[in-house]
């Protein structure tokens, strides 16, 4: 793959092994500003490994990751926090913060002043449909509500463009605890942020959700890239048979211009 210097994040031949067993190998992917890329694959395909490498939690054993043209490991944590937000699968917050306090923490890396920060908090809470929860204590929320609050927090972190680089949003299964309407609402919120020149990489389980909202898809299977491209290119019965071991039919979505998997 050609290295595009404009890519916000560029992985080249990325690999990771644990105890000599490769968990991930040969992953090359670029995500541009304004683009939403979904990573799909069955359990144990290496999605979480990829996410840990991208979020800097683990260091890759092969290949490299460039973020805004600079090697990811060379970014100081503080600078990184202003241009990149990461939403992990689950959060262990158990202290009784108010929801709006949790969202406000997303503004921690910035020095934009309290007034501005509170304004941003209101905007992202509206975007994530959690305004009505603002005076609730975080530990009292349901799993789905917590997930939306965490999204609001990471959106607050990258809400405004900054001069030091193009923004990136990493999401690890952000819809896992959401009901259907909130799954769609969350992906729509993510797409809106994406449209504001943010690069988005999201791990999702639901093929149809990925096909409908992502600009491009990458399929991981046994630690390797099984397919990569637009939804039409990637979501094929053969791929689903080979990767997910499921006999499925793919048809055109009646309302949207994307494939629909029926299993």
């Amino acid at each position, binding site marked *: 793959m050609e290295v595009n210097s404009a890519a916000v994040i560029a992985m080249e031949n990325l690999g990771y092994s644990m105890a000599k067993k490769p968990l991930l190998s040969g992953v090359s992917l670029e995500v541009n500003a304004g683009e939403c890329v979904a990573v799909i694959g069955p359990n144990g395909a290496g999605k979480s490994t990829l996410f840990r490498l991208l*979020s*800097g*939690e683990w260091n890759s054993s092969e290949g490299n990751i460039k973020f805004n043209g600079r090697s990811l490991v060379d970014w100081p*944590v*503080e*600078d*990184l*926090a*202003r241009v*990149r*937000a*990461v939403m*992990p699968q689950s*959060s*262990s*917050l*158990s*202290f*009784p*913060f*108010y929801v*709006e*306090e*949790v969202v406000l*923490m*997303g503004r*921690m*890396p910035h020095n934009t002043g309290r007034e501005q920060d509170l304004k941003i908090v209101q905007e992202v809470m509206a975007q994530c449909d959690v305004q009505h929860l603002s005076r609730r204590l975080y*530990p009292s929320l349901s799993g789905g509500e917590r997930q939306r609050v965490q999204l609001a927090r990471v959106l607050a*972190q990258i809400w405004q463009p900054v001069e030091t680089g193009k923004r990136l949003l990493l999401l690890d299964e952000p819809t896992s605890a959401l009901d259907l309407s909130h799954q769609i609402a969350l992906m729509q919120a993510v797409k809106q942020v994406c449209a504001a020149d943010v690069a988005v990489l999201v791990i999702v389980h639901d093929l149809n959700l990925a096909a409908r909202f992502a600009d491009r898809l990458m399929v991981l299977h046994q630690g390797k890239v099984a397919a990569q491209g637009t939804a039409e290119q990637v979501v094929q019965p053969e791929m689903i048979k080979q990767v997910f071991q499921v006999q499925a039919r793919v048809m055109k979505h009646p309302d949207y211009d994307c494939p629909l998997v029926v299993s």
Partner: protein
Amino acid sequence: MFHAHPKLLIAILAALMVVAGLYSISSGTVNIPLADLLRVLTQPDSSSGAYDLVVWKIRLPRVVLTIVVGASLALSGAMVQGLFRNPLADPSLIGVSGGAAVGAAVAIVLGGSWQLVEASWAVPFMAFVGGASVTLLVYRLGVSPMGTSVATMLLAGVAINAMTSACISYLATVAEDVRLRNLVFWLMGSFNVSSWQKVVWVAPFTVFALLMIFKVWKGLNALLLGESEARHLGIEVEKLRLWVVITSALAVGVSVAAVGVVGFVGLVVPHVIRLLIGPDHRWLLPASALLGAALLCVADLAARTWLEPKELPIGVLTAVLGAPFFLFLVSQRRRGQLYGS
């Protein structure tokens, strides 16, 4: 707009601390009327009455020592709980105070003295080393990227506390005569051997811990979200951890070296503050310091006046109040009503 008026609470707690301090100075075998007390305090040279001696040589250093020790213990408790992301992580329960006590005991037996000024840096330094080692050990054992295992943390504390009391008993057995007397003095030593020298030893570390609030409050808030979440918010977690461990071990260690182990202050005080104004460390930390100071001041007053002329060790008093409170917290946790997993 957030949890009820933290600034107001801090003002109230500061006033409470001053009132408790003044009341404690005026009470005792000799009761000093408030007017006389204020005169003695504001014009120390004007009269050479009996009150002068009682206030300046005996009660004031004692009250100031309770204030700096109380503030240190409560502040350290709040910081350590933030680091462990758990409200049950009290320095005395997880063995930090015990580790500090062993450090201090080693220093005393090997040549220090319970009088800090004679022991130079040895006793408080060794107490710091003991406290810091235990904090790091328990952290290693109990905290993983997935969160804190409360069971591991508390069980490690049980084992460490058993080990530290065994160490101290051993030291008491092998110590030579003079050293043994020093050790026993220190072990029993509550605030009844307060002196300005001790205040001068402890106070700088209390001030240091208070100043560290500015450095760690943001990071500790972020850390409550989780370790990697804090990192993604731009917090250098390793540095933060190091600062918290050093600060709390210094504050706890020096307090233990000065007055022995006083338990439960670091558990009860931050919990009460969190109920009042929430877990935001920006306010939790200073408010805990103030309430800890006021509480220990009152506890010490009770310890020395309750069974007059006998004096209760203050550790007995804080344990009698704190242990049931701890059991209450544990029972809440069992019913899933208390935060912390």
